[in-house]
């Protein structure tokens, strides 16, 4: 159903090196007024909207996480249903997407109790409700409903989100960081992704505006930059150094971009990293803040995995905290921090809850951000409520605290175990090296593919890692995303695999994957 991502992703990443070689489609955007052959002739037979006449930025963007490999998987799934036993596996295991609850992770009970009560407040008065819901969930629901005018959860809220919920989120941020947060800096959105899109829309004026992005990156960034007509300026994370971020690399890429006439507007940092899973060291973060301040860049801090840390030696520090700790305030650095309800231990992807905290912008810029948010009126209320719960969970002493903390710790410790098990499994494979997943939800092993495999891929017009992923799927039912969907140093190959299958499935995943890999290497060994 979808064309494959590699060639376009490569073009996208390399296009900033060769701005004059950018595709004809994107440069014709400015000349279409004169370039009449692009304009459909009303008397011609073809309909007004065809793939040749849609917005070229739409054609240019790619998103491999739900790309070709997923289509292949869905076809296989249908075949399995129609003809059980037709494949050497019983089920498709979707390890392509950070979607924990689709693989059996349970939601946090307290959160769901509160959400259910807020969805149907008329049962709050009923005595039977006390028997079905914990007392503190009932209390919290009342508290939340009192923040919403008329207790109307079906009404559009303020375009930044319900004020009282933003107050709670700001309090949660302050409790986390030790520095105050202003509820007026918070914009609640349908997941973190729309907030990222909003910022790209504000920042990108033309194809000469560049955004520094880590390579490998979560392809929301490359896709959003393409959709808004900007230039992705890559900075390479160092695989040999645990996917470390070097300031020298940032400086180098910034300088090169400038020399090509690109105005770099912002720096994207994903911490913990996706797909790479590294957690930044504090001194690294300070150097990043200094860099942005010096170079006048907006720092876009994607912190959606802030609650997914699996190693004792690392801790999450928000960029807001780091900046404030350095003595930098509103007048010193422009920082946008993104958080989501989709990840962490709550994994509530389907709710579409999230926010951005916007600091260091002038009032007139903030007005524009508000204006753009207002066109969509507001984000879904249930997601807003959930964001406030995530930033303000049960505390010691609350009735639900014990069960809450047991659920949370259970999920996080299990994720840590799975991260380790799969990391070790990948490292045990011939020609595969895998950095530790210090955080997030993914492993990003590097596969050193034999030349024969690379040539076989070329013959099929596929990227080598796409061939590997496709064969893996055919043999085992396991769906991973080829590394080319995220970007990688040219000539290196990876794939991203989530750590999310339930623990009892992990041994089978490991053994099937191992068997496949051995067979694959056997087939293609030089």
């Amino acid at each position, binding site marked *: 159903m*979808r064309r494959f991502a590699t060639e376009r992703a490569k073009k996208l990443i390399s296009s900033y090196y060769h701005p004059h070689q950018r595709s004809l489609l994107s440069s014709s955007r400015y000349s*279409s007024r004169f370039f009449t052959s692009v*304009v*459909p002739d*009303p008397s*011609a037979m073809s*309909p*007004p*909207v065809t793939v040749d*006449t849609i*917005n*070229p930025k*739409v054609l240019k*963007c790619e*998103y491999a*996480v739900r790309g070709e490999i997923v289509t292949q998987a869905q076809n296989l799934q249908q075949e399995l249903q129609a003809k059980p036993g037709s494949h050497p596996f019983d089920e498709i295991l979707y390890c392509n997407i950070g979607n*924990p609850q*689709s693989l059996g992770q349970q939601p946090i009970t307290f959160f*769901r*109790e509160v959400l*259910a009560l807020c*969805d*149907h407040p008329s*049962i709050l008065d*009923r005595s*039977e409700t006390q028997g079905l819901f914990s007392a503190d969930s009932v209390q919290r629901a009342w508290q939340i409903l009192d923040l919403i005018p*008329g207790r*109307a*959860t*079906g*009404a*559009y*809220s303020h375009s930044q989100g319900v004020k009282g919920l933003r107050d709670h989120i700001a309090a949660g941020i302050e409790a986390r960081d030790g520095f105050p947060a202003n509820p007026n800096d918070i914009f609640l959105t*349908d997941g973190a*992704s729309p907030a990222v899109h909003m910022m790209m*829309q*504000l*920042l*990108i004026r033309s194809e000469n505006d560049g955004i520094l992005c880590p390579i490998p990156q979560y392809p929301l960034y490359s*896709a959003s930059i393409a*959709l808004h007509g900007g230039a992705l300026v890559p900075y390479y994370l160092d695989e040999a150094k645990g996917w470390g971020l070097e300031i020298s690399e940032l400086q180098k890429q910034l300088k090169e971009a400038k020399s090509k006439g690109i105005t770099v507007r912002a720096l994207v940092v994903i911490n913990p990293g996706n797909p790479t899973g590294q957690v930044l060291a504090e001194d690294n973060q300070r150097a990043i803040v200094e860099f942005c301040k010096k170079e*006048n860049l*907006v720092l876009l801090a994607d912190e959606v995995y802030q609650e997914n840390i699996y190693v004792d030696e690392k801790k999450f520090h928000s960029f807001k905290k780091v900046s404030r700790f350095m003595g930098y305030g509103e*007048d*010193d650095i*422009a920082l946008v921090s993104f958080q989501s309800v*989709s990840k962490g231990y709550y994994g509530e992807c*389907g*709710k*579409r809850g999230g926010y951005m905290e916007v600091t*260091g912008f002038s009032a007139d810029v903030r007005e*524009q951000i508000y*204006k*753009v948010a*207002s066109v*969509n*009126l507001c984000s*879904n*209320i*249930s997601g807003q409520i959930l964001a406030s719960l995530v930033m303000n969970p049960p505390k010691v002493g609350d009735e639900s605290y014990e069960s809450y903390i047991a659920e949370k710790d259970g999920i996080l410790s299990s994720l840590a175990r799975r991260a380790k098990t799969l990391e070790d499994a990948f490292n045990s494979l011939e020609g595969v090296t895998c950095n530790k997943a210090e955080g997030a939800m993914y492993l990003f092993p590097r596969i050193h593919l034999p030349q024969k495999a690379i040539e076989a891929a070329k013959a099929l017009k596929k990227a080598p890692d796409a061939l590997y992923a496709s064969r893996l799927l055919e043999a085992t039912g396991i769906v991973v995303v080829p590394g080319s969907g995220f970007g990688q140093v040219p000539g290196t190959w990876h794939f991203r695999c989530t750590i999310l299958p339930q623990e009892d499935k992990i041994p089978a995943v490991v053994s099937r994957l191992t068997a496949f890999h051995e067979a694959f290497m056997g087939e293609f060994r030089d």
Partner: protein
Amino acid sequence: MSMGLEYETLNENVKKVQYAVRGELYLRASELQKEGKKIIFTNVGNPHALGQKPLTFPRQVVALCQAPFLLDDPNVELLFPADAIARAKHYLSLTSGGLGAYSDSRGLPGIRKEIAEFIGRRDGYPSDPELIFLTDGASKGVMQILNATIRGESDGILVPVPQYPLYSATISLCGGSLVPYYLEETANWGLDVNQLRQSVSKARSNGITIRAMVIINPGNPTGQCLSEANIREILHFCYQEKLVLLGDEVYQQNIYQDARPFLSARKTLLDMGPPMSQAVQLVSFHTVSKGYWGECGQRGGYFEMTNIPPKVVDEIYKVASISLSPNVPGQIFLGLMVNPPKPGDISYLKFERESKAILDSLRRRAHIMTDGFNSCRNVVCNFTEGAMYSFPQIRLPPKAIEAAKRVGKVPDVFYCLKLLEATGISTVPGSGFGQKEGVFHLRTTILPAEEDMPAIMESFKKFNDEFMEQYEDHRGYSRM
């Protein structure tokens, strides 16, 4: 010290955007509210904010879906009727992992199937679930389609004037051109195809390629319901001029007269048979925010594509996939909306009663408001045939217009601000929707509670008639 992002270096398209619905009047009203003044917000179609209660059945179902552990508890039947329990189980079975998992980027297949079946029943023609995409509110769908269609500033979109400013705002954001076609107020906000042709040829002579035409049926802010003949004319026009028709049909349940029931653009198109039915490209939009549901806060909507080439559908899917999926609770609301309780279901009678009460009341309020405005000096108001708004024309005397100019305000903004300050009624000035030069309106909703309406209309009349008294010259209002 300059930092990353400054007003001067913002994307120009963002700066061009206007969205009056939550603009100056709303912000001023919010300020006054903070100061303790009682405000009646009639600036946005937000029924629950004005006291309309949610329908019981959908809230029962979604609450159970949120907390599936309730379904294991034998006491759940004390709080929830059996059909709500069954329906919750049904929707949970359509998901893979419950409400907390990303669904298919187009929305859960099971719910898209329910929507297709609804469309089939409504129109008498089968609909393909694969061509139905669920979105976080219809607005997101409109943005996606317009973004796919607009390539640059020489791509024009035909938009009715007055229009719901989502369209003008989105066209600005996408860097395209809005090509207005004026609805005729004296002909009940009717659409004149000759007007359309004129707008198109003027735009084309300026080098604009017209790509699409937007119709809002029932209209917003104008409320008119299109006749079958009108829709056919529009479809012919799109066929001849090679335009995609964008049919905003979010108010299809809000019909307050019987002469022109709702007729979908799709049904009309398919009734016309080939070649038109196979050639005209159409995207139709619907939502849970309006109708008698009014569930704005859920952000549930969908669009249905007709005659859109598969490769384009693929591209639209690709863009949808970047945002992963629409929110699942909103999807379930959509499923419930198109598949409400049926006669014989335990919850049917209550559901029917609740729905009918809302719709009957809306119809009455449409009349109360129209008549109320028409009883005011220098105010003329077309009847609200559908949707949720009243859009009276305010014939401002020249002195009022001068007074507005003196304080640097657009005349209808000036009037609406004075109205707000005097009565607490927060409306949206007509300039936010577009209107003919020198003709002024305001948009209000018909949503304040029925029992509050008489007092509100009285309060308005008092303000208006005093305003007119103050600003008319002694010869009375002279037509411009």
